[in-house]
């Protein structure tokens, strides 16, 4: 690598920022890579073998590519016991009798041990921070509030080092203002990115009008079932994701009012609602009543409804019988008995910047794109962004180019926009498919899910798309 000295600044200390920090620090030993993290506290350092500590609240679903990238950083997810592994995934909804069940056998049980893993945010960040602290050219600044971002420099303030921890008045503590002249500035600061807004990156934002309610719960046994369940309601999906030791993570994306009611309910009311909703199985399809139609048309509609309903319910029953095609038995989730964490809410928006780079500033992760959590792809897209950016910078630097080479950054932007738009479009389409309640869409969805469930080929392609493989 070139021995050119320089400075790269990364704004944002989440998984994406830390991954980029460790990768770039290894790639460019002569550069100083500084990461500015707004949160003042470091993530707890959780050990691989520590399964006794309860799972912390924020978890991510990682696909194989993300796990490989993290292992390139020096963090081995495969050896860790602090993760949830799921070998099968079940998707169904509340208005039709169809369900979709994937298994490792659909993608090849010999090459894959699981469909995916669920890992805590704290586990990844804590270990990556430790890895970064062992790299001499990687620096992490905690509690850095970014004040101004231009294309050559980042200005940030940090609270002056507090020697006595008993003092709690923060308003009188003077802040020190620092400025970093950087060859490359990376915005990895999440969906409300300061870097993005300071540099006026044009953003397309569509609010879903939904909130994701996240919490950790425990079931009645100490063994976690290795299946990820997701049930769609008209407001959005309720997902139960396995962790370890009988713990599961709940992600319920629903309307804002409903999420507020759930967050403010008592724990026992909340758990009984969750059990009632996730425990419900396939229900016979119900079409809208034709009471608004004049009587002759109404009887025709009722007749048509009966015929189509019988066909749809029948195909679903055939689906549930494992003898036909590749369908697997419908599995009921376990009974949730304990709420193990506070309930945390996130607003859900569809966001995408028009371009991922502008002169020497580049965006990665949620700063560039934000998708609905129903497919668990948000962080996977971010980590793939990091991998692509590192590859592009490497191709430039190894051939004597600059770190912020215009063509390299443009290649990154184009390649990632293409991939992200594909995934985003697919997820947004799924959102609409499961949101609609009119008769035609219900029928199409019910038949589609049942038929895909019975076909091994279709399931294989869908599972591979979700796992991030070609």
């Amino acid at each position, binding site marked *: 690598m070139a021995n050119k000295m320089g400075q790269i600044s990364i704004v944002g200390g989440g998984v994406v920022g830390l991954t980029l920090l460790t990768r770039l620090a290894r790639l460019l030993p002569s550069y100083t890579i500084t990461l500015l993290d707004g949160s003042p506290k470091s993530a707890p350092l959780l050990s691989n073998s520590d399964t006794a500590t309860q799972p912390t609240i924020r978890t991510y679903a990682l696909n194989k590519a993300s796990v490989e990238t993290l292992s390139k950083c020096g963090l081995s997810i495969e050896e860790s016991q602090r993760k949830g592994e799921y070998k099968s995934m079940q998707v169904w909804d*509340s208005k039709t009798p169809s369900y979709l069940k994937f298994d490792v056998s659909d993608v090849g049980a010999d090459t894959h041990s699981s469909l995916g893993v669920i890992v805590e945010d704290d586990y990844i960040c804590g270990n990556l921070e430790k890895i970064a602290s062992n790299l001499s050219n990687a620096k992490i600044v905690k509690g850095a509030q970014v004040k101004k971002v231009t294309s050559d420099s980042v200005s940030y303030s940090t609270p002056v080092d507090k020697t006595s921890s008993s003092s709690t008045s923060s308003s009188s503590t003077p802040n020190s203002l620092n400025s970093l002249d950087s060859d490359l500035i990376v915005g990895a600061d999440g969906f409300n990115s300061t870097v993005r807004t300071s540099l006026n990156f044009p953003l397309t934002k569509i609010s879903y009008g939904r909130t994701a309610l996240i919490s950790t719960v425990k079931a009645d046994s100490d063994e976690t079932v290795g299946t990820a369940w997701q049930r769609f*309601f*008209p*407001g959005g999906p*309720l997902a139960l994701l396995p962790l370890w030791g009988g713990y599961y993570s709940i992600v319920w994306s*629903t*309307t804002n*009012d*409903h999420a507020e*009611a*759930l967050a403010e*309910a008592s724990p026992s*009311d*909340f758990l009984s*609602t969750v059990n*009632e*909703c996730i425990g419900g199985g396939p229900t016979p399809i119900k079409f809208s009543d034709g*009471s*608004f*139609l*004049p*009587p002759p*048309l*109404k009887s025709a509609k009722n007749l048509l409804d009966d015929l189509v309903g019988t066909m749809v319910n029948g195909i679903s029953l055939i689906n549930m019988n494992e003898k036909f095609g590749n369908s697997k038995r419908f599995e009921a989730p376990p009974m949730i008995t304990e709420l193990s964490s506070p309930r945390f809410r996130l607003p859900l928006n569809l966001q995408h910047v028009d371009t991922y780079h502008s002169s020497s500033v580049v965006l990665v992760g949620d700063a560039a794109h934000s998708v609905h959590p129903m497919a668990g792809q948000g962080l996977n897209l971010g980590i793939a962004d990091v991998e692509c950016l590192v590859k592009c910078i490497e191709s430039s630097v190894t051939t004597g180019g600059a770190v912020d080479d215009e063509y390299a950054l443009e290649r990154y932007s184009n390649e990632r926009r293409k991939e992200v738009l594909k995934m985003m479009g697919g997820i947004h389409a799924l959102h609409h498919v499961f*949101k609609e*309640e*009119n008769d035609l869409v219900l029928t199409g969805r019910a038949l589609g899910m049942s038929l895909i469930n019975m076909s091994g080929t279709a399931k294989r392609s869908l599972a591979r798309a979700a796992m991030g493989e070609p």
Partner: protein
Amino acid sequence: MLRLRPLLSSRKLSLSLSTTTTSSSSSSSSSSSSRFSNPNSSSTLDPSESTKFGKLADSWYPDTEKSKGSLKPPETLKPPPRNPLLEMNPYRISFLLSLLPPPPYSGLPSLDVGAGGGIASESLYNLGMDVTAVEPSLELCNLIKNRLSKIKVHNGPLETLPPPPSPYALTTVFELIEHLPPSSLPNFINNLTEVTGGLIVVSSIDKSLNSFVKCKLAPETIGIVPWGTHEYERFIDRRDVTKMFEEEGWECVKCNGMRLEGGLVGEVKFGWKGRGGVWEEGESGGNWIAGFRKKEEM
């Protein structure tokens, strides 16, 4: 525009009116066993209509408060169907205000006959008037009482209303007479003129091909109003109503057609929403609204 012959011809009306007015003029304002002068005439209440509307009490007003705070995930995200009367109301009120002296109206005694869910009553109450609502359906009376606890509600047809201390300054009869048995209309109008001392405002639907398509066929087929809400037989032309009032010695001071401009009423059930229309003066809808006052003694 093709106009179908109405079922009741004007000549038959005047014949029947002449037989009843002779008997009523002899016992005009003296106390009798029943408040109104013709106790034995056909009742102005058709019980099937009142049960039909009683069933719609829950969906009269779009109820968005109910599901807030519920722990169960929302069953459906479709908004509830909107009552087209809510869209018609502003024009009806502005019409009657154009016939009244300028505000304030505090304490003005007014009567809303056939109040339904209390849409017009609520508007009159918000303007400061002292409203009495008359409604034969019990469910709808309870709906009015729940929403507006301060107004007087009478559960029953008009002829069972107890006598007011002084005649009402304003009586509104909105979208009612097309639901009454046609033979009881003269009696009904007689009752109206007996309790009112000021302005009577009537709104209803013409009887023509235009109104059949626009007020009966189209809304009921695509779900804006439930099937069976209206009966074409009972639509009544504004001229016939004016004649009935003239028999009582009341004249029509203003009569306008009503029509919806821009946007469709409510949600069309194929999934396409067209909303935000404004009701205003115009002819093509078949709806009409008219104000009646007692003829000045010369």
